[in-house]
């Protein structure tokens, strides 16, 4: 394996520095934006003394660097503090919302992968045909609007006008699905509740597609061009010379080679979609970390805000690391099996 221990050490150091950087940046940023978290907590009739007492109790009256050091000490011991708004442990709160977000992002990526690869292959094989032109046009459209605008467009078309698909929540409230993995699609299937699965599938359709569109466009373009390159290679000539059916040549022999550039794209896009999911969740009332983040901002719930940002940062840094690792392993010589 072409990965040295110094490389791993360097990456680990880089990850730690990134995490600390994000924590400092977030800490300062959330405290300089206007709005007093303590005022959000007390009743409008509370006296000035009560407010100051609460502020002291929460530690918000201390110097910023002391607050940070205290927070960091707790963070190292695995504690993210207590949410002001929910009065619950932040870590517990965030991890209860994390599966919903991951489910949304992963389903988006799967949808994008299947569709993007398929239309990429079609565009390459029928390069220059009307089918290719239409698909390229759709791709361009998908790429030219941001996620949230697509979300709004879909809500209007499928929700408000056609009433075809639900536009809010993860599942109909009538269904009771016991969490096993936290992924509602899997949990409903595992417990054999097909009706619940259908409902969950219908609920995830629009947010997932809104989030997937830009990735579909990117995959379409990448795969079309890498597929065109591969189809002109000598080894594809060899396969044709053998008389192999074109379907086998394209979907087996050529596709495996053409997919290699898309692997890195998927890793980078995962973090990009994590970011995009924040606003998509908000638009579709998806009970994940994104909506939680909006609530935290709204109520200036500093511990919660900081906790959410740290989880996002951890996910991004870890994904980048894994992507780099896969890439280093695949890169020098292509070996997929």
């Amino acid at each position, binding site marked *: 394996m072409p990965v040295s221990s110094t490389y791993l050490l360097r990456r680990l150091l880089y990850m730690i520095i990134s995490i600390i950087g994000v924590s400092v940046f977030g800490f300062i940023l959330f405290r300089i934006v206007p709005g007093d978290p303590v005022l959000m907590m007390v009743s409008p009739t509370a006296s000035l003394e009560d407010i100051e007492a609460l502020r002291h109790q929460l530690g918000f009256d201390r110097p910023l660097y002391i607050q940070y050091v205290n927070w960091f000490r707790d963070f190292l011991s695995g504690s993210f503090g207590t949410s002001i708004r929910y009065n619950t442990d932040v870590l517990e709160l965030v991890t209860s919302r994390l599966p919903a977000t991951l489910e949304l992002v992963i389903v988006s990526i799967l949808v994008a992968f299947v569709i993007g690869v398929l239309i990429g292959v079609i565009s390459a094989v029928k390069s220059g045909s009307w089918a290719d032109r239409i698909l390229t046009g759709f791709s361009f459209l998908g790429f030219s609007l941001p996620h949230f605008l697509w979300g709004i467009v879909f809500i209007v078309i499928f929700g408000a006008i056609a009433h075809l698909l639900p536009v809010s929540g993860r599942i109909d409230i009538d269904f009771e699905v016991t969490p096993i993995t936290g992924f509602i699609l899997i949990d409903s299937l595992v417990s054999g509740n097909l009706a619940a699965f259908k409902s969950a599938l219908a609920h995830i359709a629009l947010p997932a597609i809104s989030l997937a569109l830009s990735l579909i466009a990117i995959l379409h373009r990448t795969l079309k061009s890498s597929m065109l390159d591969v189809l002109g290679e000598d080894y594809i*000539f*060899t396969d044709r*010379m*053998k*008389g192999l059916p074109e379907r086998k040549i394209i979907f087996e022999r050529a596709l495996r*080679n053409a997919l*290699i550039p898309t692997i890195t794209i998927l890793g980078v896009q995962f973090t990009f979609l994590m970011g995009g999911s924040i606003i998509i969740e908000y638009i579709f009332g998806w009970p994940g970390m994104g909506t939680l983040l909006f609530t935290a901002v709204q109520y200036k719930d500093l511990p919660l805000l900081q906790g959410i940002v740290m989880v996002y940062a951890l996910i991004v840094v870890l994904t980048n690391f894994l992507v780099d690792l896969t890439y280093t392993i695949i890169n020098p010589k292509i070996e997929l*099996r």
Partner: protein
Amino acid sequence: MLLKVQDLKVSFATPKRMIPTLHRVSFDLDYGEVLGLVGESGTGKSITGKSILRLLPPNGMITGGKILFKKRDLVGLRESEMRKIRGKEISAVQQDPLSSLNPAFRIKDQMTDILTLHTDMSEKEAEEHVIQLLNQVGIKDARSVINKYPHQLSGGMCQRVMIAIAFSCSPSLVIADEPTTALDVITQALVIELMKRMQEENNTSIIFITHDISLASKICERIAVMHKGEVVEIGKTEEVLFNPKHEYTRLLINSIPKIEKEIRTIFNGVET
């Protein structure tokens, strides 16, 4: 007569217009014969070979002529019919052995596919047959080689694998397009020797494409000289070499340093 190419014309579509590339290419080939297709690069040798397989680049088109293979005209034959001929009746070896094998698949997968397609061998039988074939082309540790990827083998090894693939269904015709150009001199000689042996053992006809007339003279019974999309001269190797009729053939022979000497050593070598 195995193959008769008659007034073959090929054009390429460019954004502006059709560019005629082959004009009136004609030659024939007997069963078990090795014919050299010789000429400088860009004269249309590879395009001729690809036309016979009906595997021209997407913008290329046969615009006239006939390719009579076993008395059947391949021009205008349906793609599904062509696919039964490719690999089974006509196969090819290309110039660059490393790039003509798929980097993402094991040697095994790239050798059994043609067998299971054209014969009624099972996957297992095909694998056994592949090991025999590899032994035949001089690869001894065939059992470990079949599990390797192309980049783990040398260029010479890859070309042996390609030759094994090309001969695996005992085709009547193998089109060898500069099969040794990418190899070093010693490997080149070994590969030529191997092709000659395989050809004799299977009584295969070969179209041997090369820009090197002295190399062609080592393996070919007859030589067709191509120039600017036409066959300008065709005849027995000795005749073409010692008594060239066409101006261009003379040029080709003169451009090779010390050709006379080399040819003498070859023919002396054959006689002794």
